[in-house]
């Protein structure tokens, strides 16, 4: 009997010991899991900070690019043209400029008119030759719109582009040549 009781006690003790060890292991595992979770949270926070820093850097570089574009000198084009009218008398410069603005608005809209920064730089009232300034990216639209001008100040007219230049100096030289040609004829 005593042997049986001793065996049962030993078995109970070993079971208790095994349970105690298992609980210790579980506790250790739990603690490790907690530590890993804590580390992950810290990593996540660091990642968030890093993301923020990268986004700020990108935004500032984009802003720098945009500012660079704004700071860059505006590229302009000078269109040398002359007016042919039905009665042979060139129209006044205000009417020529108004007609070009109206035609550009009709063809390409108000935004293009604003972006083109159109300006009649020079106009010779005797010969009807002039220089029109426009931005380089709207040059084609302005040239096409000039063809839509068929009436200036009530009389029939055509605007004939002679040449497009990048500097006002060249434009004046071309205009000078044109004026000399017109004087000859």
């Amino acid at each position, binding site marked *: 009997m005593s042997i049986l009781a001793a065996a049962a006690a030993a078995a109970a003790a070993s079971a208790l010991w095994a349970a105690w060890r298992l609980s210790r292991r579980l506790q250790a595992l739990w603690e490790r899991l907690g530590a890993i979770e804590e580390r992950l949270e810290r990593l996540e926070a660091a990642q968030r900070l890093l993301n923020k820093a990268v986004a700020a850097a990108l935004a500032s570089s984009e802003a720098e690019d945009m500012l660079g574009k704004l700071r860059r000198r505006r590229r302009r084009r000078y269109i040398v043209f002359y007016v042919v009218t039905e009665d042979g008398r060139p129209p006044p410069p205000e009417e020529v400029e108004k007609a070009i603005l109206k035609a550009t608005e009709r063809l390409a809209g108000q935004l293009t008119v604003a972006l083109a920064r159109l300006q009649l730089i020079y106009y010779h009232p005797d010969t009807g030759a002039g220089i029109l300034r426009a931005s380089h990216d709207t040059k084609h639209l*302005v*040239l*096409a719109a000039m*063809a839509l001008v*068929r009436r200036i100040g009530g009389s029939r007219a055509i605007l*004939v582009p002679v040449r497009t230049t990048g500097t006002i100096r060249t434009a004046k030289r071309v205009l000078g040549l044109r004026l000399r040609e017109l004087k000859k004829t």
Partner: protein
Amino acid sequence: MKPCDLGLVACGRRAGEQLAQMLLRLGYRVAAVECSDPRGAAEAARALREAGLEAYTRATVEAERWQDVVRQVARLSLSYDLMAVKPRSAEAARLAARDPRVSLVTLTPSMARYMDKSQALMLREGGSVVELRLLPLLRGGDPRAALRGIMIIARRASAYDAAFTVTSGARSPWQLWPPASARALLEAFGVPPQLALLALTAYCRKALDKALAGEGR
């Protein structure tokens, strides 16, 4: 290369003389005049030639069916230098592109849907040139529909490597387009600059060469 306008409308000497003066001022050197009467067209072309231009006569055939194209072109090609067809259906457009007597296929803005890949292929095979008329842009009112149609045809023709030319369709000197403006309009549509230049020079010459070679006549 000389700029050309193959789409003028003038009957008789007086109309030809009026157009010739303005054409020279604008810088054109080659032109084709259209008139329902062959003698009127010949007189107008003679007036242009006397002014120093290279001038030809042309006729435009409007056709719904391909049989109409064949019949009318066969009849008119004996009286005019250059034949143009304004197709009213897809089959007429296809046949006109391949006909050896037809040099120009006139597409109005409302016919932009005919300018597709197979049409471009036929144009390339037949050596015909698509004609774009700018006259609808000068009419009063909203130019958006006309602009859209012309833009689609020009962009598709350049994308599919089909030859195309721009004509004014002018009846009076005040309806002519300066070559620089016509070229700028094509460039504004998104046509490459070199092709825009070819549309006013070399492609016209191509149409004339085909007409003057008398292929199939």
